[in-house]
């Protein structure tokens, strides 16, 4: 059968919440980063789907997706750089080891 908009939206929403869940629960910084990627991908799906099914005459969603992918890459690059630096000083990439700043 042909997947309709709602299937895709369902999928993307599921992805979104999986991402959020991962972000909230995982202790490993890299994994948290990955779950953010999940969120972004769910958004990409959204855009594509909306563009394909609802507003096929313009390409806004498509372009947006492309940009999101690009930005996500940049973000990931900076994030990983920071995480590496964190690892240098903390000798771990566990989020629970980086809680000095509080109150």
């Amino acid at each position, binding site marked *: 059968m042909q997947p309709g908009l709602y299937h895709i939206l369902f999928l993307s929403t599921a992805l979104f919440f999986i991402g959020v869940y991962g972000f909230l629960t995982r202790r490993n910084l890299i994994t948290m980063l990955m779950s953010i990627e999940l969120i972004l991908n769910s958004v990409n799906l959204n855009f594509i789907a909306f*563009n394909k099914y609802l507003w096929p005459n313009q390409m806004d969603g498509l372009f*947006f997706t492309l940009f999101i992918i690009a930005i996500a890459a940049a973000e990931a690059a900076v994030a990983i750089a*920071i995480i590496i630096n964190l690892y240098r000083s903390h000798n771990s990439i566990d989020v629970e080891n980086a809680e000095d700043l509080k109150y």
Partner: protein
Amino acid sequence: MNEFFILMKQELAVTAIIFLLLFIKIGKGIQHSSLLSLVQFLLLINFGAGFFFNQSGWLFGDMYQTTPLIVFQKNILSLGVYLISLLCADWLKKTEHLPEFFMLMLSALLGMFLMISSGNLLIFYLALELATIPVAAMANFDLHKKRSSEGAMKMILSSAFSSGILLFGISLIYGITGTLSFALIPGQLDGSTLQLLAFVFLLSAFAFKLSIVPFHLWTADVYEGSPIAVTSFLSVISKGAIAFIFITILYKVFQPMGEVWYNMLVILAVITMVIGNLFAIRQQNIKRFLAFSSIAQVGFILVGMSSGSEVGITAVVYFVLIYVFSNLAAFGVAAVITEQSGKENIDDYKGLYKTNPFLCWILALALFSLAGIPPTAGFFGKLFLITAGATKASFIFITIAALNMIVSLYYYLRVIRAAFMDKNENPISAIKLSPSVKLGLIICGAGIVLVGLLSWMYDYIHSLSL
């Protein structure tokens, strides 16, 4: 084509500086002091450039727009950056990666420029990220400090998270309206549940960037962790930029939902002011203290925003202008002291007046301005924000706002008291101010005093925001 250069002059100027720095970096580097003064000069030029050939227009279809007001806002930002480059000179000279620092900071600035004049959600998103990611990198600039990298980590992760939320909201809006252009969206809005949801997502992303309670929690940690130059950049420049675009989007794009976001702003403003103040009371570290105080200030900005008329825009822009001077002055003093003595706690400021009267007076001016006590400009800024908030004549709201001024006064006075009154057998030794720092502080002080008393400035902004 010619128009293109005129409309985008500030962006182009910043880009030019970035590339210049890049070439310098690639080529054989100059030693930092001269490079720094060069950059300061260029930034001054960039700031000056804002005052000529101002005209409004659109570029790239509806992607990019500029109006005199927007140019003015950009000027405020570039002025702020210039002041930072002056105030943090001592620290900047020391960092081994001076060009990179400026490249990052300026690209963030570029992002903010684009963000302010964006006319479309796509470019808005791009600009937002451009304004965020480099700052995260900057936050980590004390490469060997644990706290610095922790702060940076917190920032990049949570901002990535928030942009995820933002994007989800945008995607929903796109799904509903089928357009990304600010001009077209309002026509499509009818306040349906889904739209509200999308709006809430969008708003929470803004709230995160503006560090509105309860989306503010990253703020203090990042501020404390990162070097003061970055902290001041975060707390003044990016806050200002976000405030500008936020108010534009609220007033333009979500204008049909005015009723909804008014209520939201009221709620958020109240809890932001209260929580921010309550946290600020207890802080010891000056950077953290200023972080929370700036959260409370954002609460006041929201009060002004809630007005929903050009009075609100004027008040917000005016306040941000004053806020740039006041907060940067405070940060500047803190930067000098941290740089010279490595001390960051309020208790270390005890007896400062004995040794550094000039710094103390600037600090006092800045803090009183933040607290909104005349004759400093902060008084006028706060007053007009509250006036704008009062246009809807909900007395409880503005009463709460006014009462919050008492609490804020209380903790600002704590610092003043430490500096002026408390005894201290070994206070911070007398500090020799480098000329650029002195210049920066004097500019800030002058701004704090004059912006309020020269009332035509307010009227000028008002005329722009009509």
